[in-house]
């Protein structure tokens, strides 16, 4: 006949009250759980996405503002020089353009056109059908890897041909359309829900842009040698070309964590704190009301010699049962809610579909449980204080007179 057993009997005796409390705690804790998943989810997912791209160092121009950097000139020469560094395993140049894809009998569609020297396991896509972009650009004038969603929508298969024309932001383009052959279909790592991604070789991109012989890259991706690591590669490249900005994936994630993600973290902290307070208020109020209703009973127990520690621990266990029961229910509920919210957020324009806002991490679960345990203890504190200070004789007298 322990305090936990007495608390269990009380909880099961007042089923409706207990069920309401647990449901309330479950809903509130589900939100808490989701906020904890959100507090690190986007950063973890972003880091994971960068790792999956197969490169751990990024080289950018120092010209322009962070999101609108000027391209790096003489990028081919840079790639060769970087590729010769002992810390570097492979190098790829990347150029981003907007383009319009046309095919007979269908309306034109805007695409994000990616010109790259990356291919195979180091490409920012997972090939689903067909072949990778050829390593030798002279083999094919304009080979294309198209996003699977576009391939499905337009019934494109490897071997299909489409016309593609580069567009210039804010200007009418007079560039002619170029016929390109689809060599493969793929899932692009950074594809967003609101646009189609198409990749070609740097040579193919030049063709689409009217044959202009520029040698620029928006980004140079570098894979460091495993024995050297990205930090050494960053130092070597920065030494080679101090006029460029060089970041490891870790640097990019840290910067993202400081800047882009700060809002999410602040929102998460505020909402987490509020949900903890709500859970405390809900359980604290229920326990206090329930204790006030049982003051006569508690005074009688004290008169019978039942000690304060037993009554206090009974209330603490009762709180733990209500919060614990709700907390357990909160996990699947929070999981479902996170899944739904994640789907909605990933539909935002420009957000890669593979980027997740809510990512499960064992640390989030541990923190969730710790916060709930603290809530249970704090919520039980006032009722415990109330019963500890309860004057027995006046309470018994009041019960009889009342």
């Amino acid at each position, binding site marked *: 006949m322990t305090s936990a057993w007495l608390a269990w009997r009380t909880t099961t005796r*007042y089923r409706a009250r207990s069920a309401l409390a647990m449901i309330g705690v479950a809903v509130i804790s589900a939100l808490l759980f989701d906020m904890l998943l959100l507090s690190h989810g986007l950063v973890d997912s972003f880091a994971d996405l960068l790792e999956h791209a197969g490169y751990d160092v990024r080289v950018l121009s120092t010209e322009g503002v962070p999101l609108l950097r000027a391209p790096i000139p003489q990028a081919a020469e840079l790639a060769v020089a970087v590729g010769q560094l002992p810390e570097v395993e492979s190098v790829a140049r990347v150029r981003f353009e907007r383009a319009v894809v046309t095919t007979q009998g269908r309306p034109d569609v805007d695409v994000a056109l990616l010109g790259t020297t990356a291919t195979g396991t180091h490409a920012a896509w997972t090939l689903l059908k067909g072949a990778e972009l050829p390593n030798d650009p002279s083999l094919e004038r304009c080979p294309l890897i198209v996003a699977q969603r576009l391939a499905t929508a337009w019934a494109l298969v490897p071997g299909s041909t489409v016309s593609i024309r580069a567009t210039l932001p804010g200007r009418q383009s007079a560039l002619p359309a170029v016929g390109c052959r689809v060599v493969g279909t793929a899932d692009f790592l950074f594809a967003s829900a609101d646009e189609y991604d198409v990749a070609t070789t740097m040579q193919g991109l030049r063709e689409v842009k009217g044959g202009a012989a520029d040698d620029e890259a928006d980004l140079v991706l570098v894979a460091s040698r495993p024995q050297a690591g990205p930090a050494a590669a960053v130092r070597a490249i920065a030494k080679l070309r101090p006029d460029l900005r060089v970041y490891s994936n870790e640097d990019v994630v840290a910067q993202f964590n400081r800047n882009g993600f700060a809002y999410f973290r602040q929102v998460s902290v505020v909402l987490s704190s509020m949900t903890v307070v709500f859970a405390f208020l809900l359980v604290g109020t229920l326990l206090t009301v329930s204790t006030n209703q049982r003051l006569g009973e508690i005074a009688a127990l004290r008169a019978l*010699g039942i000690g304060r520690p037993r009554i206090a621990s009974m209330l603490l266990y009762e709180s733990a049962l209500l919060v614990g029961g709700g907390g357990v229910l909160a996990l699947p509920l929070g999981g479902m809610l996170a899944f739904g919210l994640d789907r909605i957020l990933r539909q935002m324009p420009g957000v890669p579909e593979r980027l997740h806002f809510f990512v499960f991490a064992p640390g989030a679960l541990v923190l969730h449980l710790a916060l709930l345990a603290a809530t249970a203890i704090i919520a039980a504190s006032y009722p415990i204080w109330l019963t500890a200070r309860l004057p027995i004789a006046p309470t018994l007298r009041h019960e009889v007179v009342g």
Partner: protein
Amino acid sequence: MMPRATIVEARGVSRVFPMSAGPVNALRNVSLSIGTADYVAITGPSGCGKSTLLHLIGCVDTPTSGAIVFENRNVASLSEAERSRIRLMRIGFVFQRFFLLPMLTARENIELPQAEARVAAAARRARCDALLEYVGLADRADHLPSQLSGGEMQRVAIARALANQPALLVADEPTGELDEETGAHVADLFDRVHADGMAILVVTHNPVLASRASRRLTMKSGSLTS
């Protein structure tokens, strides 16, 4: 004949309750001694201080002046934990409103003070069976209070009060919530408890119950008269 040892003694106790309208003198210089085989009934009009005296003797309250000496120990000098221990082991309380825990069965209610006293489960069960038999509720052991009548609940409460074999049974209007016939059954049970050697202090308006006591005291305006 065995000499009667004193269990509890009130020595010139007064109890003043501070109220917003001014202090209320609930007890005025009351002295009372209860020995091992005593059966004391205190009667008197409502508000005369009967329950206040019972609470002082039952160690749930302390006097404003004077002393309550329980088994040769001045209660006022004891800590709350020590007073709680005395209530658990040496005093059995019976209340007008029974105050059984609604989520526990009759058996579990009776076992509760024994569990607090760390009596082993087997011994608790044996004592509980004996007490249920004693109060005539062996067949109601697994019933919740809500499934018992008022008289049955009071009998369970008496069994609970006897669970740790106390020296003194204190009862505050134990028949106050019962009809005449059921009250008489409870009075019979008190007779039996007393006959078995336990000291009893009962505060009551019930003349039938009071008439069973070996000492009948009357209280008026906070003072005792015989």
